[in-house]
């Protein structure tokens, strides 16, 4: 031991100070150093895990929303088609109805016109008849007056008159 270099022989002073110093640094680092770093890394790991989980959930939710929106869109399209179909049917029915109505009205108008025409015709006939009657009376009157003058001439006169009347 005697002639061995000092680095090979344990020295009490150095051991003592090394022990004290090491305990101090161990205490400081174990209390203030490493737990903060390890804790932060652990928390970061948890944070990342949670974020990933949240992202996955959000993705799933998004996929659900997408499906739902597609479903809504499909439904809307169906409804639209249905509405268009209904509108077309309504249009057809309205047009048909309008046509029927127009026809009916037309017919009615025609009938009314016919009636009026008939009435006019009757009136005219009645007029003619009364005029004919008047004429007849006048003619008869004239004829009766003519009779007073002669038969033959009377007859010719009557004929002429009739022809005039015609």
């Amino acid at each position, binding site marked *: 031991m*005697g002639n061995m270099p000092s680095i090979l022989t344990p020295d*009490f002073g150095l051991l003592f100070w090394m022990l004290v110093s090491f305990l101090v640094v161990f205490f400081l*680092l*174990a209390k203030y*150093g490493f737990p903060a770093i390890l804790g932060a890394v652990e928390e970061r790991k948890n944070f990342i895990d949670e974020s990933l989980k949240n992202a996955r959930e959000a993705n799933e939710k998004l996929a659900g929303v997408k499906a739902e929106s597609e479903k809504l869109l499909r439904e809307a399209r169906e409804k639209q088609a249905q509405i268009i179909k209904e509108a077309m049917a309504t249009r057809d029915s309205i047009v048909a109805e309008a046509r029927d109505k127009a026809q009916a009205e037309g017919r009615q108008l025609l009938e009314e016109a016919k009636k009026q025409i008939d009435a006019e015709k009757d009136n005219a006939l009645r007029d003619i008849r009364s005029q004919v009657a008047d004429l007849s009376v006048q003619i008869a009157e004239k004829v009766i007056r003519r009779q007073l003058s002669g038969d033959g001439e009377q007859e010719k006169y009557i004929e002429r008159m009739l022809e005039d009347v015609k």
Partner: protein
Amino acid sequence: MQIIKYIRLGLFLLLMLLVPVAAMANEDEAGGEINVQEIIFDHMSDAYEWHLWGHTHISLPVIVKHHEGGWEIFSSARFHESADGTYKGFYIDKGRKGKVYEQGYEDRPWDVSITKDVVQIWINIFVLLLIFIPCARWYKKRLAEGDHAAPKGFKGAVEMLTMYIHDDVIKACIGEKHYRPYAPYLLTVFFFIFVTNLVGLLPIFPGGSNVTGNLSITMLLAVGTFLLVNIFGNKEYWKEILWPDVPMMMKCPVPLMPVVELIGIFTKPFALMMRLFANMFGGHTVILSLTCLIFITWKVSTGMGASMTVVSFLMLIFMNCLELLVAFLQAYVFTMLSSVYIGLAHPGHHK
């Protein structure tokens, strides 16, 4: 810019070549033969003063106890002030490892001086705290703000290394179930050794003291592992030592296996202690030897000295790079093996 860089590098290299020459001139003044072994051990041994350059050094406090009782605290500079190198009956005995002795007594007095290695340990601890405390504060501040972002730059590197040792060494070697209480200690051990190794590679003042290449230091670290393993080892661990699962003849009449296992308890930390010590000691020795080679060859002839300076210089660069690797590797190995031993002290039930 590139050219300026090269010029600067060239000047730096030239300076590096001049340093040994200048140092040699100093050596010549002293006028002695170069004793490589003495120089190397002088550089690596603990001392009561910190040699800076030439004849300049920092005197460190000496704290010793008289054999009759009573403590003395004084600067090591006091030894140089008196003619015979004694102060209050104490003197440094160069023949006996340069330690302080008291006159009239053969055995060492109680000596808890703040030596070069102690100061170096304090500097290293300061560096460790300087690295980790601001880092930890940064994390706390960011967490308080609810910010989980990972750090960048130096803090990122610290976190990476910490988590690497924590996850891939401590957790992996001890096991998921038991690693937690040991993690702070083993991390401290790792970073203490790592920083000490690195600072030990610095050739000048704030570093350069050979701490991990001193058996006292590695012994203490190994004892730490030894205590953790054997105090907190569980029942299965002791059963495997005292009554291992081997054929009866190996343990019953003559307790062969238990004896081997009991020796194993001590050889494991002993190996830890020797491995770290020998690696750091070896690295420093090689670097110092290569440096000494420059001086020796200059003594032989100028031409040989100049050429060997170049060779030594290149070899020194290579060795320093290698030592950087060794600095990490030894800290890593020490931590890993400590973890493995602690893990072995917590065996699960056999399946």
